[in-house]
């Protein structure tokens, strides 16, 4: 099913997909110069597992800040596109950031939400996203008009490709299953930061 702008899906209409598969598709689709900021938890772990991509930044802690960090990278690097990868529980913690992204019209930023309706890393407790909070609808309410649920894998790829065709900001909601991540992110903050900054060409020598 293709992206249908005129009839945006509701959360319950979107296909439940695999996090690892979606991140793999995303990483295969985007150019090497683009940056990806991964929020905490299993989303971050699968971003790490898919590929040791130099222009990836992996957060550890600071739950909810993948979108603000991504926005900061986007402000500093206007010539590349930045993807902020965040979980539903994390975004629920920092909903205001969507209003900031929308108000600033951060054209080179795409937010990707992995929504399984649960806090998987803490034992699978139910999240508010599974009790009626539709993060795509909230994003639209924040003024982020280009916010859609990905109907299926093809629609997801189409939305990722839009990043280099039309100005953002945009938000892609992905319903995902509760599959465990394949690996765990390396936990060495200065190294993670250093690799990212060198990959961006900010740090040299």
């Amino acid at each position, binding site marked *: 099913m293709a992206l249908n702008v005129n009839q945006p899906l509701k959360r319950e209409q979107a296909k439940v997909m695999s996090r690892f598969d979606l991140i793999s598709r995303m990483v295969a689709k985007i150019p090497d110069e683009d*940056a990806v*900021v991964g929020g905490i938890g299993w989303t971050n772990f699968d971003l790490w597992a898919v590929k040791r991509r130099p222009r990836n*930044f992996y*957060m*550890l*802690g*600071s*739950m*909810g*800040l993948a*979108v*603000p*960090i*991504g*926005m*900061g*990278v*986007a*402000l*500093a*690097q206007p010539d590349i596109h930045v993807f902020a990868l965040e979980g539903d529980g994390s975004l629920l913690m*920092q*909903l*205001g*950031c969507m*209003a*900031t992204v929308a*108000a*600033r019209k951060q054209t080179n930023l795409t937010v990707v939400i992995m929504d399984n309706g649960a806090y998987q890393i803490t034992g699978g407790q139910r999240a508010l996203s599974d009790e009626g909070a539709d993060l795509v609808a909230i994003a639209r309410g924040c003024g982020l008009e280009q916010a859609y649920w990905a109907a299926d894998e093809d629609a997801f790829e189409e939305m990722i490709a839009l990043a280099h065709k039309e100005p953002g900001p945009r938000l892609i909601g992905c319903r995902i299953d509760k599959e465990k991540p394949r690996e765990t992110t390396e936990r060495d*903050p*200065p190294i*993670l*930061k250093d690799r*990212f*900054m060198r990959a*961006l*060409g*900010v740090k040299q020598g």
Partner: protein
Amino acid sequence: MATETWYEITVKVLKKHKVDLVTYVPDNVLRPLIELIHADPYFTAFACAREEEAVGITAGAWMGGRRGIVLMQTSGFATLPNTLASLSVPFQIPTLMMVSERGTMGEFNIGQQMVARTMRPVLDTLMIEAHTMTRLDEMEFILDRSMIQAWATQIPCCYILSPLLTGGKVFAA
């Protein structure tokens, strides 16, 4: 020659160090600085919904090669310990913060008085360089040297603007 104000000195030093991104949560005492920054096309400046977000944005910008500073009041700083302890400090990101100090020297809101007591212990515990700025004649030196130190050591820095410097927020008794 007219004396420079604290906010004019701040803008001068920010420009000297190429700090051109300013994120903030509004505050009455900071208003002249915020207005001066917004009036100057050198800066990209905007309000955020929450201080954590403002720190996240400048952290991302730093990694992307752009320097920023976060403006807030004391109660806003109290929302930041987790962000500073899990992002700025461990990742060695020199987050610059400027906090207008409430809760002292004429405070009228007991909540501000209580929350202000938490600020310096948090800064000390996280080994963040912090300066309470009370005098106009010291301001440029402290701002300038501490920014150089922040970039060199990759440790955050917090400038606390005392009511002795800014006049603070006055209780209309």
